[in-house]
Structure formats: C-alpha cells, structure tokens
C-alpha cells in the first residue's frame, strides 16, 4: 500500500505521459530488446527486424491496449489486485505467459518513462514510487499464475 506522497507521485507522473505514445514504444522495445517475448505475439504479424517492429501498426495498437490497462491500475491504486484479476487469469490460462516477462515489460516501460520525462522529473523519488506501483501490478499478474 503506497503512501499518500507516493500515490501523488504516481498520478503526477502518469498525467505527464501519453498512453498512445508510450504504450507502442514500450511494447516495441520489449520485442526488440528481449526478442524471445515475440513468441507471445504471433498474431501481430511482421516482427522480423527492429524496423519492422517499430513500424508495425498492430504492435502500436496493442501497446495502447496495454497502457490503457495500466491506466486502470493508476486510477485504482487502492485495489490493484482485483482490478487485474481477470487480466491476470487471461495471461496465465489463455496466453500462458511466463511471469518473468511481466517484469521485462515494466522495465521497458520505465525506460520509456525516463526518456520522456528526463532526470529532473523522473527523479530517484519518482522512480521509487513508480517502481513500487509496477511491482504491485506485476504481483497482481503473477497472482493467478500458480
């Protein structure tokens, strides 16, 4: 459970991000930097090269879907576990995603956030609050995986 200061920090950071901009970037980077994650995205079409991934409209669309889902968590910081119960089950029972990959996506996302906001906005304290939020989200996603 985050402190009030941490909650404000998370909401404040989120307000400076664009779901449509950052979602596609984070997903593209995941697929490029950790290529084994491509195995979960056979339906997205051409992932044959970094250029193909960056230009793939299905990757962009799906990136927006993922960020939209993360926004639900930002708006429901009190109850992340139940916010993600259905999605968690889907990722384990339907997609069989190895839970380690959730961490890779959040790392990818954090890098995109750092790039977008720069060091004077994405300070160590901001990174701390953000990292805690993502850890809770990842934990909610791992919840159904056993």
């Amino acid at each position, binding site marked *: 459970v985050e402190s009030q200061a941490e909650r404000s920090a998370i909401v404040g950071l989120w307000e400076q991000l664009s779901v449509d901009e950052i979602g596609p970037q984070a997903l*593209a*980077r995941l697929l*490029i*930097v950790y290529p084994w994650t491509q195995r979960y995205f056979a339906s997205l079409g051409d992932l044959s090269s*970094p250029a193909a*991934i*960056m230009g793939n409209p299905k990757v962009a669309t799906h990136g927006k879907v993922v960020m939209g889902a993360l926004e639900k968590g930002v708006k429901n910081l009190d109850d992340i576990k139940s916010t993600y119960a259905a999605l968690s089950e889907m990722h384990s029972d339907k997609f069989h995603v190895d839970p380690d990959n959730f961490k890779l996506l959040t*790392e990818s996302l*954090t*890098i*995109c956030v*750092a*790039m*977008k*906001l*720069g*060091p004077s906005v*994405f300070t*160590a*304290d901001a*990174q*701390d609050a953000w*990292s805690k939020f993502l850890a809770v989200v990842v934990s909610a996603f791992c919840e159904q995986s056993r």
Partner: protein
Amino acid sequence: MVAWTDAERKAIQDIWGKLKPAAGQKALIRCLIVYPWTQRYFSSFGSLSDAAAIKSNKKVAAHGEVVLKGLGLAVKNMDNIKATYAPLSVLHSEKLHVDPDNFRLLGDCFTIVVAAHLGRAFTADIQAAWQKFVAVVIAALAKQYH
C-alpha cells in the same frame, strides 16, 4: 568471448562519451533509494536514513565515481571484460560479500540514468546494445563467485 558488432561498439562508446562524471553517483543514489536493501553494503557510509540523506551523502558521491571508473574499464576493454574484471569480481565476492543479484539492480539504475539523460537518442537499437553490455559486465562481476 563476447561478439560485438560494430554498431554495438559504437553505441557503447557513444553513450560513454555522453555520460557526465556524476552518472555513477546518480545511479548509486537511485539504487539505494529504490532498492533500499542494498544499503546494507554501505554501512560505513554514514547516514542513508532517507532520500535526502542519500542524495547529499559525500561518500555515496565518491563511491559513485569509483563505480563509474570501474565501468569505464569495461568500456575500454570490451573484448576482454571477463579478465579485466577478475580482480573486481574477487573483491565483490570474497571481501564485500555482495549478492550478485544486486549487480543487476545497479545496472538497471544505470540504464535509467542513461535513458533519462539521452532521451529520444536512446533508441531501441542503442538500448539493446547497452543492455547487452551491462549483462556482460554483470556476468564478469559474478564470475569469480563460488
């Protein structure tokens, strides 16, 4: 031996050229704040009691420079990181008793410092090269553990 493409070598050298001298301090500060259990290795550093104390701690700043110099050794010896780091690896395992998982945490914080500093210049290809480099450094640091 690790194989580096020309593009990867260039990416690492370019990043290194752009890093400011305080980058090591910045990464270490983030590590100590975001992953507070890492503070246990720095009990001789004086006050790390809160984020403000960590940020103003002179020993943290000094040690950040030491860490950055260490990273510089790897940048200058990319074809021989394992041998270059053998003594550092022995130091971290036998004298400092650092759990190798913590190398990854500090590495992640370095990546965030680099990403925040470079912004859009931290492209997916450059990120991939940097993360490969960090992984090689971490493996070399963990090599002498038994």
